[in-house]
């Protein structure tokens, strides 16, 4: 157990970090509220995702998400302090996309001693996850607080989450993304290709089929090579499709097999079921302009 480390990391459930990594690096994960139909519950990682996406797919229940209260964050920080943390690095969901960051920031001010250092990840899902892993590895190597903060700031500009949505419906319904809300009525089935980068969700392109989407993903990722981190993320996409993506990305993968991560209900509620994509940290001095 790495409890001896005096720098600890806190993140939130939106980071979609697999349990193995959470335990391996001893990360503090703040749960997030998810509502499905009349029920509201805290997603601490135990919520049945298959059931959630099933309900989302059938449209039987509207889902929503809510940031935890500053009190939940304070509780989490306090626990880390009690475990001996001198400094806490907070890596939470992008400030532009959620109020999680604000609440975490507020809680940080409530904790005495200025121990909590929050860096806006400008990311979601494993985009946050990879920054957390990179920071945790640096701490393990003995990096100082300042070095870790500097590292995360550098890496986040090379971090992207990309994916193809099965349809634009959920993104439109979520109301978070202005271009999606403003879309015309679509007469044809269109799958949006989205990119989350620098705190913004943008439309990278539109395709009609998953095949074409995967080609576009590969094209895009090729511009970012050599990749430093790569994970496949999905919201219960079809298994053969995930396998196919694994196959075509294999040559670009920095670690094999490529980790496959289920996107949790919070981000998942906004993009809907059946989405497939990647979270990636691209090569240095190869900043993409996704053109």
């Amino acid at each position, binding site marked *: 157990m790495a409890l001896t480390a005096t720098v600890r990391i806190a993140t939130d459930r939106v980071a979609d970090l697999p349990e193995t990594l959470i335990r391996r690096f001893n990360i503090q994960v703040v749960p997030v509220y998810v509502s499905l139909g009349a029920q509201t519950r805290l997603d601490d990682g135990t919520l049945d995702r298959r059931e959630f996406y099933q309900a989302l797919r059938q449209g039987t229940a509207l889902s929503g998400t809510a940031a935890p209260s500053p009190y939940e964050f304070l509780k989490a920080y306090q626990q880390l302090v009690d475990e001996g943390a001198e400094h806490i690095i907070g890596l939470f969901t992008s400030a532009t996309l959620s109020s999680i960051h604000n609440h975490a920031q507020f809680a940080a001010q409530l904790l005495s001693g200025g121990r909590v250092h929050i860096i806006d990840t400008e990311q979601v899902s494993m985009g946050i996850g990879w920054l957390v892993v990179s920071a945790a590895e640096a701490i393990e190597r003995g990096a100082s607080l300042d070095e870790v903060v500097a590292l995360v700031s550098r890496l986040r500009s090379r971090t992207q989450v990309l994916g193809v949505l099965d349809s634009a419906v959920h993104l439109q319904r979520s109301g978070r993304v202005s271009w999606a809300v403003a879309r*015309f*009525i*679509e*007469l*044809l*089935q*269109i799958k949006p290709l989205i990119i989350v980068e620098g705190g913004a969700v943008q439309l990278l*392109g*539109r*395709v*009609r*089929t*998953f*095949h*074409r989407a995967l080609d576009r993903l590969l094209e895009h990722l090729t511009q970012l090579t050599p990749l430093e981190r790569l994970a496949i993320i999905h919201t219960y996409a079809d298994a053969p499709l995930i396998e196919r993506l694994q196959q075509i990305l294999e040559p670009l993968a920095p670690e094999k097999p490529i980790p496959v991560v289920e996107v949790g209900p919070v981000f998942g509620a906004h993009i809907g079921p059946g989405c497939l994509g990647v979270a990636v940290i691209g090569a240095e001095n190869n900043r993409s*302009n*996704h*053109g």
Partner: protein
Amino acid sequence: MGELLREPIYTLDGDDFKQMVLAALLWLRQHQAMVNALNVFPVPDGDTGTNMTLTMTSAWDEIAGVQEPLIGRMASKMAHGALMGARGNSGVILSQIWRGFARSLDDQLHLRAEDMVAAMHSAAETAYKGVVKPVEGTILTVVREVAEETFAVAQETRDLRVLFERIVQHARASVARTPTLLPVLRQAGVVDSGGQGLLVILEGMCRHLQGLPVAEDGVQELPFEISPLQPAVHGAVTQEQIEFDSNYPYDVQFIIVGHNMNVDEIRAAIEKLGDCPLTVGDASTIKVHVHVADPGIPISYGAKCGSLRDVVVEDMQAQYQEFMSGRESSLTLMGADIPAGLNDAQSLNIGVVVVAAGAGLANVFRSLGTVTVVEGGQTMNPSTAQILEAVENVPADNVIILPNNKNIFLAARQAAEVSQKEVVVVPTRTIPQGVAALLSLDQNASLEANVATMSAVSKEVTTGEITWATRDVELNGIEVREGDAIGLLDGDLVVDTRSFEEAVRWLLAEADLEDRELVTLYYGEGVNPEQAQALTDELIEAYPDLEFEVVEGLQPHYPYIISIE
């Protein structure tokens, strides 16, 4: 009087040439249906006779009111008219012939036999240059052989009447040989329609020199009526209304200036008022265009939404007649009166002009982004001028044209060439290819990059087209009877059967569905939507691994267009 006593003709001037153009046009009108019938493929396809007639009509309209003694200048005016009205591949090649012809004559007063040699040579050369991959056994071969014969005959005689008689004779022989050069003609048992059209034009000119009648009643005087054979042409979105609907005789345009206006709401309201509606703009400035029976209705509606500017009400009957007398002014209706602010607000890096027939298909393209739809397609190819006008009106300096039909490639390329803007034609052959290309448009990428992507993705789509055979033929070993439902897979005839729905089933059975995910059925004009839905439901059962969608296309002539991707 008599054949033996006729005076030789050594020179022709501007007025002579004008009369010859009219004679050519009238003679072509007489033979339009015959030229149309020379269709290789038994599908309702771009009708060559109609396209060439419309091109010559535009050429004539340009010079009808002109007094010009210099043949060079008369020819160059006529060539300009042909270029602006060029329709279909045959019409565009024809316009190139006239361009080369006129360029050679330059500012000359008279045409003599030796000038005719140079002019025909230049005509043939320009025609070949206008085509990316010249094919022998077409109008190109005919014009080249005519040019060669002109040279040969001019060695023997300087009499232009004799010269014309000889080249017409030679043109006829040349047309007759086209099936020996082009296997597809041989197979279909026809001569090349474009070559035949050129022959008719030369013959009309020759008949004028011979003093023979070219019009049915033997009179070759103005004015003439538009032939009932001409297909309807209208640019629903391009504003330019050549055809008018007598139910909606008034063309109303205005700009509404206001704040927080809801463009979609106003568009929906305008759409209910009449024909050819167009509503563009933003929350502060909206441009409205619509054809209505009562111009007061849209204007008072607009006044409720904000304050009105630049109200224009036009009587389309008058416009129509003006078009028929060939004024270019009707082509710039829209561009001139869009305020700069609106243009800026709508300004794009890359504009797209798509050609599509059918209100449903036009809506599909519009739903995919900011595009200008030029109405047209099979059997009603838009003119160079119509495409050009759309290109000029797009609020972008870079424009991509998606012709969605190979018969429109040349007119699209002409428009691209004539325009001052940076214009590229992505040669999409079908509606599904055009949809795929448009979807890949990336406003952040360069024109070149977009063209490359669009060309590549359009080839990834398989297109099925269901139509009816326009005559008996045997193709690809399939015996086709006139009126049969036939299915084309990426342009190849693969199915001949009784019903259109049956043709769809067979076509899918023939198609390679490996790695395909999505099939879209665009049902055409006259197809019952419930029937299309029932067919789709049945196909969903039959192909559980594929997704199906059914979309209202309302395209003419093609009950079903199928996109397999």
